[in-house]
């Protein structure tokens, strides 16, 4: 009988994932219930069950490069239905965090990463989300990443529609104590990430 040895990545990311997600990867017995209920699974390169398996086998780098982690809509169905209480949605969050920190996200999923970063930058500055500013920053950053002009101007027609409905604010709200926001961010997030 031939015995194959699994060659794992230099440093396993499993302990980091487990720490961030407060869950145990090895608990998973691959029943597939998470993937069965996942609304995004059909279009995923590595749906939840497979992603967990990649981690179990030590293929952390493949998990970090999977497009699926950025396709996930965080609906929590996988974690809710898991018979072994593996927090799969938490694993997705942990993988996203590690992937973003290491710049491992694929170009196809870069748009989602840029949106999340623009969102956090906006909160760091204002304390509350300024939608117009967010859209501006997101569109600009995706454009600078070599994205299309059509995406830059997509949704532009939405502005008058929102204005007509008084759902559009040129000047957004801000929290008063924005200095504390800057300090909270500095204590949690590496400056270079945003």
């Amino acid at each position: 009988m031939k015995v194959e040895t699994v060659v794992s990545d230099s440093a396993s990311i499993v302990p980091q994932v487990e720490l961030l997600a407060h869950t145990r990867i090895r608990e998973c017995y691959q029943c597939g219930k998470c993937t069965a209920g996942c609304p995004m699974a059909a279009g995923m390169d590595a749906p939840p069950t497979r992603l967990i398996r990649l981690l179990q086998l030590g293929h952390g780098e493949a998990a970090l490069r999977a497009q699926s982690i950025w396709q996930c809509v965080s609906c929590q169905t996988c974690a809710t239905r898991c018979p072994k209480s593996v927090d799969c949605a938490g694993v997705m969050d942990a993988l996203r965090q590690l992937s973003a920190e290491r710049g491992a996200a694929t170009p196809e999923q870069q748009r989602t990463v840029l949106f999340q970063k623009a969102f956090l930058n906006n909160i760091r500055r204002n304390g509350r989300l300024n939608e117009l500013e967010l859209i501006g920053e997101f569109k600009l950053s995706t454009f600078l990443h070599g994205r299309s002009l059509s995406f830059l101007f997509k949704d532009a027609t939405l502005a008058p529609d929102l204005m007509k409905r008084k759902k559009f604010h040129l000047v957004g709200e801000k929290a008063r104590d924005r200095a504390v926001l800057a300090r909270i961010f500095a204590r949690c997030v590496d400056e270079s990430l945003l």
Partner: protein
Amino acid sequence: MNLAYYPGCALHGSSNDYEQSLRACLEPLDVQLKEIDDWICCGATAAHSLNQKLAVALPARNLALAENQGFREMLAPCPMCSMQLLKARKAVAQDEALRRSMSEIVELEVRGETRVLNLIQLFEKIGLDRLKAAVKSPLSSMCAACYYGCLLTRPPEVVEFDDFEQPRSMEKILEALGGKTVDWNYRTECCGAGMTMASEQTVLDLSHKILSNAQAHGANCLVVACPMCHVNLDMKQANIERHYGVRHAMPVYYLSDVVGLALGFRPEALGVNRHFVPGVASSADLQVSKPATGPKAGAK
């Protein structure tokens, strides 16, 4: 009833119609909302996707603000906010070291004692009998698909609300208002959530399935209790129709809209006229003698 109010960014942004209707309908029910002074964003998906520490710190700061302002209970009408608040509350309650480090990070003592209510829970607290007694215009022609989406019931160990596969709490409220509800399959499926800007196709695909299923089961409207669900199902509905070459014409109401309508408010007083898909033009449209809004009532 006095209650701390955590509006969250959406209700002070493009979902201000949600705030308008909930403020209007809570007034005759004797609920006074006191906005938490200097609240900040809960961090939403961006925080829990990019930094787990920040995802606890931002809501923890809001819990601490509420507690320091003397509140023991708060309303968070956005399920994203309420889930994040509850998650942070649970995390600090279970881990004293984390509670202390979070208190240092957010520069306020976080006790994690404040109760967090979603809008459905607030109506339950007011009481369905009380709600029923306040109805002036029963919603007799309404045949609603109550849509819960993800975060009202998930993760169950965090939100501890209703049945996570077969919730019924919104249906009970609708029935108290004299309306009918349909039994359908997509009440807890995801609408695409925060992908609206970054990946519109995701929203179009998922929300189309929800609208189609509601329609197939004879609903003449959708009722939601989430600003993101409303954006995806209402604002994006025209794009969904264009993309799939179908016509849904499905009005999407906030839960507070339907309570307000039953209490006799005009649609404009609730901001219903500011939705993208036209809803009822007057409360008379809710009576059985008039045909229901939309062409597909009672399709099945």
